[in-house]
């Protein structure tokens, strides 16, 4: 069905030594095709149709207007790597690296292409031309968050980018990494990111993904995380827009005593569509996971949440909790949610909860009776609702930046 779009997406850049990866991924994705509505995983998010309809040119934007983009870059003092349409912009990036960080070009081999991977992850691999690998070395504590900024610039024509990032926290390392996705331009663009994360034993890694894209941007992000024994992985995902956004976050707790904490906030208005799919796979005993996702839908936007918790047969003494809360602000907004538990072990404590409703009338009344006008009262309640997630961001600077995005979204 979506073959023609696939052909265009699969255009091969020359050289770079990733030929084998591209070749394997290309044959796999050709076989599978892009997921349509019949695919249970993409039941509510039919990207293929949008890609088919909106794209005429997948060549991408060769020349970006750097001057204009400069103004878009948040002034964060933290370390920044800036990618424009998937290419590292030396001009925009600043990289004086502190101790404990190693930055390299990505090395990949064809064996790393998993045939069971998500279709869009395969599509990313079939377009692989460069990538970045960040390693937090053994035993180092890096206090400053590393910010990786992806700008998809479609100001001149349609743009597609397939950024790829590999993050590794070695034993006992501690670090925070922020991936920030911004958009620029009026033409349709498509960002198809893959991030692979490894947390080695006793490491502590916080991964923050922030998306603030335009109404003409499509975004798919595949984040795959492997957590080793005694390691702690924190994920905070915040999305403030995009024509259609899909985040796949897949975490495998593959050794004992590991932990994963997932927090998510999605806020959409107008005709936006934000979809978060998470998987927490408990493979070994004594692991904990904890998940809280919150959504605020306004206008005629749609939110989708699907959280899967797998507890494999060996994973006894598992604690896994999941919660999804949604607020619908307008009559045309909609939410499709599916919190899912699949459990094959018996000595476990697992629960999930899910609520959907509008702003509490009594809380609104309470505030109004104290002289706060309706709009301010609503803003107050929404901010409080969202802050439960944003407060998880420990870096003050990054948190302030994200909270500012939230305020703009509520205000707009």
């Amino acid at each position, binding site marked *: 069905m979506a073959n023609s779009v696939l052909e265009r997406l699969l255009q091969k850049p020359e050289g770079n030594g990733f030929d084998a990866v591209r070749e394997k991924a290309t044959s796999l994705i050709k076989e599978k095709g892009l997921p349509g509505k019949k695919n249970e995983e993409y039941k509510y998010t039919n990207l293929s149709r949008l890609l088919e309809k909106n794209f005429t040119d997948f060549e991408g934007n060769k020349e970006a207007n750097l001057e204009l983009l400069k103004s878009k870059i948040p002034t964060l003092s933290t370390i920044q790597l800036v990618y424009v349409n998937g290419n590292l912009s030396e001009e925009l990036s600043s990289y004086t690296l502190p101790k404990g960080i190693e930055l390299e070009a990505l090395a990949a081999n064809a064996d790393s292409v998993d045939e069971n991977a998500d279709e869009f992850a395969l599509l990313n691999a079939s377009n692989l031309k460069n990538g970045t690998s960040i390693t937090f070395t053994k035993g180092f504590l890096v206090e400053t968050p590393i910010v990786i900024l992806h700008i998809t610039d479609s100001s001149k024509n349609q743009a597609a980018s397939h950024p790829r990032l590999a993050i590794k926290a070695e034993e006992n390392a501690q670090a925070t990494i922020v991936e920030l996705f911004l958009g620029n331009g009026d033409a349709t663009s498509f960002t198809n990111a893959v991030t692979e994360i490894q947390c080695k034993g006793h490491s502590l890694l916080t991964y923050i993904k922030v998306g603030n894209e335009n109404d003409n941007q499509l975004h798919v992000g595949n984040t795959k995380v492997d957590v080793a024994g005694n390691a702690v992985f924190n994920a905070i995902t915040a999305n403030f827009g995009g024509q259609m956004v899909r985040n796949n976050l897949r975490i495998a707790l593959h050794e004992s005593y590991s932990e994963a904490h997932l927090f998510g906030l999605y806020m959409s208005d107008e005709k936006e569509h934000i979809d978060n799919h998470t998987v927490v796979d408990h493979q070994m005993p004594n692991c904990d996971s904890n998940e809280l996702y919150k959504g605020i839908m306004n206008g005629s936007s749609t939110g989708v949440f699907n959280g899967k918790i797998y507890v494999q*047969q060996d994973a006894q003494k598992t604690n896994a909790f999941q919660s999804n809360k949604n607020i619908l602000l307008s009559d045309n907004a909609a939410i499709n949610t599916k919190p899912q538990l699949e*459990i094959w072990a018996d000595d476990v404590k*697992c629960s999930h909860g899910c609520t959907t409703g509008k702003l509490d009338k009594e809380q609104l009344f309470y505030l109004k009776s104290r002289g706060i006008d309706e709009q301010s009262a609503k803003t107050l309640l929404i901010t409080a609702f969202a802050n439960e997630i944003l407060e998880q961001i420990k870096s003050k600077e990054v948190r302030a930046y994200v909270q500012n995005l939230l305020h703009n979204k509520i205000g707009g």
Partner: protein
Amino acid sequence: MSKDAEILDEFTSKEYEHGWTVDLEADEAPKGLNEDIIRFISAKKEEPEWLLEWRLKAFRQWQKMEEPKWAAVKYPKVNFQDIIYYSAPKKQKKLNSLDEVDPELRETFKKLGISLEEQKRLTGVAVDAVIDSVSVATTFKETLAELGIIFCSFSEAVQDHPNLVKKYLGSVVPQGDNFYAALNSAVFSDGSFCYIPKGVHCPMELSTYFRINAANTGQFERTLIVAEEGSYVSYLEGCTAPQRDENQLHAAVVEIYVHADAEVKYSTVQNWYPGDKDGKGGIYNFVTKRGICAGDHAKLSWTQVETGSAVTWKYPSCILKGDYSVGEFYSVAVTNNHQQADTGTKMIHLGKGSKSRIVSKGISAGFSQNSYRGLVQVHKRAEDVRNFSQCDSLLLGDKCGAHTFPYIEVDNSSAQVEHEATTSKIGEDQIFYCNQRGIDTEAAVALIVNGYAKEVLNKLPMEFAVEAQKLLALTLEGSVG
């Protein structure tokens, strides 16, 4: 832990208690399925032309459909041409009293512990007993007739009340609704029909016992319940089946039409043969149950206790079309050995102020898989909808699985929808607490499981609650208490 293993062993080695066969001279259709077989069934039952056409239409739709594969169950492919689609006890005559019932048949009921006489005399339950697809005994009909209530076998209803059947048949579950509903629509043999007139409060619990009897006989029951404005009925359905090695298919359809201000309470206890401890044999239970609250303030309540069948695939649903209508679903599903259950409900909110409540309790033991799969859908124009769902799973043993697949689709901002689910094993501290007070582990576990399921069991009518508790105790005996 060794004690647990012992208990589990004992439980898993427990044979099905209701396993025997009665030799009734069956009047069977040849194996297989084609239009001629459908014509044969229809002719055999002396059905009017429109019903034959209805069946044929369903059959033609069914031929174009594919077996659903999305449920979390695995079973060998069913050969639909290897099934006998019609069998009936030969000596059919109208019966007015129990004395006229085939003595062999009555023997069957005695073994099951369902004495028609006793039920009739002591409990006041009217029993419409179905053996091999044809009703052979209907009781209390006269009492009900005085109130204008029609409670009879489906084939009788076709003969005596064709207009009602024609009006409501397929109104909730259309022929082409799904693969098994289409199959049922094409070949349904018999079932029950129940009509409660306007404003009538049915004074007794209505009940049907289904049994699958002759070998290789697929059972395709069709139940249709219509509750007119302001009426009330509580309907019970219970099942046990004899032991068989060959898998048997059961694809029933239950349709319930609830008019304004009426209330229907539908309760099921299902204990079909689940297969032996190696997962051999057992019933495939692929059922479509759906009701519509068509009028304002209508109420439909499903209660089910599922302990049997090798594979269960069942989602009793409510379409809440009327404003301020109410849908309820209470379920206890127990699986053991290699049983698989994929069950849940659908609450489709179309009416303003409609409310629904889902309470599902799953208990899995042995190598079984127990899934809850549910949908709560709030349509755009359904203002002020309220839903609460609770799905708990209890795991006994480390080889079984418990899964939850809730779909929640909300298109209206005034809706308040809540879902919560937990999965755990029985708390060691709870058992310890009981032990401390002189209650041994087995009894303690029984106590805890009973308490766990109580919320649902309480919803069953008295007559059934006793049977359900017995069933639960029987299924859990040896494993946990």
